[in-house]
Every structure is written in C-alpha cells, then in structure tokens.
C-alpha cells in the first residue's frame, strides 16, 4: 500500500507531462485519406476503448479470484476496475458517435461493435448499482456480474470480424504498429507513434486512478472496522 502511495504522484506527473506533449505529437500525424481531420479523434478514442476492454478483463480476473479465495484485496481491485470500465465506457460511447457523425453520417448505428460496447457498459453499470444498493453480501453477486462482463470483452473485440459492420476491422491497429518496423508510410506508420504515445499516457494515468480507488476502498474497510470497535 505504501509503494502504491508513492507510485501515484509519479504516475500522475509522468502522464500529465505526456498529455501536455500529446497535442504536438498528434499534430505530426498525417490526415487520414478518407476521413481527414475528424480521424484525429482516434488518438483519444482508441486508447480509451482498448483500456476499457483490458479493465473489464482484469475486473473479471479479480472477481474470479475473489469468488474462489474470498480475498478482500481482489474485491477492492475488481470494484476499482468496474468503476473505471463505466467511466471509460462513457468516454468511448460519446467520442465514438461524435466521430461517426462525420465519418458515417450518423450519430449511432445498431451495429455489433457499438451495441456490444453499450451492453458491456450496462453490465458494469449494473455491477456498480449492485454494490451501491445490494446490501450485505452484494460483493459476491457483483463478482459474478463482473465475471460475466469480462466474458463480453473478447466478444466486443471480435465482433467487427464476425459480422459485417461499419467499424474498422481489428487488423487496422496491428498493421499500423507493424508498419513502424518496415517504415511503410502508406500503412499508417506515422499514425502509430502518436497512438502509442496517447495509449501509454492514458495507461499510466488510469493505473494511478485504480490505485487511488483501491485506497479509497481500503480506507472504507478500515473505517468499518473502527466503527465496530467503537460500538463494542
């Protein structure tokens, strides 16, 4: 816990510095050939979307650990991650339609990626509502919900490959990153740098947020124990 306390300011300072430099780095990326300027939403939308899927998977793992071993720390981590999934979901489900309005001509389309992302967001919102109003023992039920939410994550990722959809396929990002090695400008190698930069910045920032959220839950647990001690 002490290491976490020391790590949070470091992560916040590094991510803040990276975010300050981000506009200049994004500015070095070329315009995409069919979408133009609006494609720049990609540099904030995609890192948040990837981190949403990673956070939901990690929440599933933490929930499973809690269900099997009843470790309180696993429950704290699962709760922190579930809350982060909901926050990231809000970002992704708002920035996506803003991009779609220009790129597809519509704010929303009931296509597989958008619909499955919305469902995943609702599952994790249900997790938080359960924790808030479920009463005693709700953490066990919430862990099951977290596990189901995590199962949705690969489905959200592969949905664009399984069905005909307006969304770009999953091959876009690997091709873009692979193009760095070959220096293939046509495959978007110059767009990969700013994307990786923003992804690292958001990752560091959200790790700090998760540590803070776990700290809050740990403080609340201490508080509950102290209240019990006072009542004895």
């Amino acid at each position, binding site marked *: 816990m002490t290491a976490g306390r020391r790590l949070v300011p470091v992560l916040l300072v590094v991510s803040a510095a990276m975010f300050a430099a981000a506009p200049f780095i994004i500015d070095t990326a070329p315009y995409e050939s069919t979408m133009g300027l609006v494609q720049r939403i990609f540099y904030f*939308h995609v890192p948040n979307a990837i981190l949403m899927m990673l956070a939901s998977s990690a929440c599933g793992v933490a929930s499973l650990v809690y269900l099997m071993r009843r470790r309180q720390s696993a429950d704290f981590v699962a709760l922190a991650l579930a809350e982060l999934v909901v*926050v990231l979901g809000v*970002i992704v489900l708002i*920035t996506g339609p803003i*991009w779609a309005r*220009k790129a597809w001509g519509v704010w929303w389309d009931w296509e597989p990626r958008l619909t499955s992302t919305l469902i995943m967001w609702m599952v994790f919102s249900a997790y938080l509502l359960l924790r*808030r109003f479920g009463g005693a023992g709700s953490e066990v039920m919430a862990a099951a919900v977290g596990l189901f939410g995590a199962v949705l994550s690969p489905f959200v990722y592969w949905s664009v490959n399984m069905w005909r959809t307006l969304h770009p396929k999953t091959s876009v990002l690997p091709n873009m990153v692979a193009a760095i090695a070959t220096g293939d400008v046509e495959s978007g190698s110059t767009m990969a740098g700013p994307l990786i930069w923003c992804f690292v910045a958001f990752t560091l920032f959200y790790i700090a947020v998760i540590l803070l959220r776990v700290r809050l839950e740990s*403080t609340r647990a201490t508080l509950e124990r102290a*209240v019990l*001690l006072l009542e004895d």
Partner: protein
Amino acid sequence: MNAKVSRTCFTLATLSVTMLLMGATLLAQASEADKTFRPIQPGNELLQEKLPATPLVFSAYAVVWIVVVVYVLTLWRRIAKAELEITRIATRIEGRP
C-alpha cells in the same frame, strides 16, 4: 434521508436510460431511406460533406477531459471524506475511558 434521496436519484437515472434506449430502438427501425435510393437534388449536397470536422474533434477531446476531471474530483472528494471520518473515529476511540 440522504440515502433515500440518492436511491431515488439512481432509480430515476436508471429509468431515464431505459426510456432513452427504448426510444432509440424505435427510432432505429428501417426508414424510407432504407427501402429506396433517391437521386440527389441540385444544390443539396450531402450533409456529411458540409459538416465541419473541427468542432467535432474539439468536442470529442473536451468530452474526454471533462469526464476524466469530474471522475478524479469525485474520487478525491470520497477519499478526503473517508479519511476525515477515520480521524474523527480514531479521536473518539482514543478519548474512551
């Protein structure tokens, strides 16, 4: 009292989201445009081509920062409240005979 108000707010929020989703599903039903193609009228260019990108890009980036800042502030407030409560209870425990 606070818990009751908060519970009512959450219930209302859940109901609003459900209503919104139901409305969106109804709106998502096939429109006339899905059944037939219509030629473009002279002087009536596609809306997509007229829509400026700059406000959309700025709005998207602003949304990210607003959501992040609001979340971090609420997190900070909750941590401060819990730590204050701990201090208060610790003082009460220490003051017991």
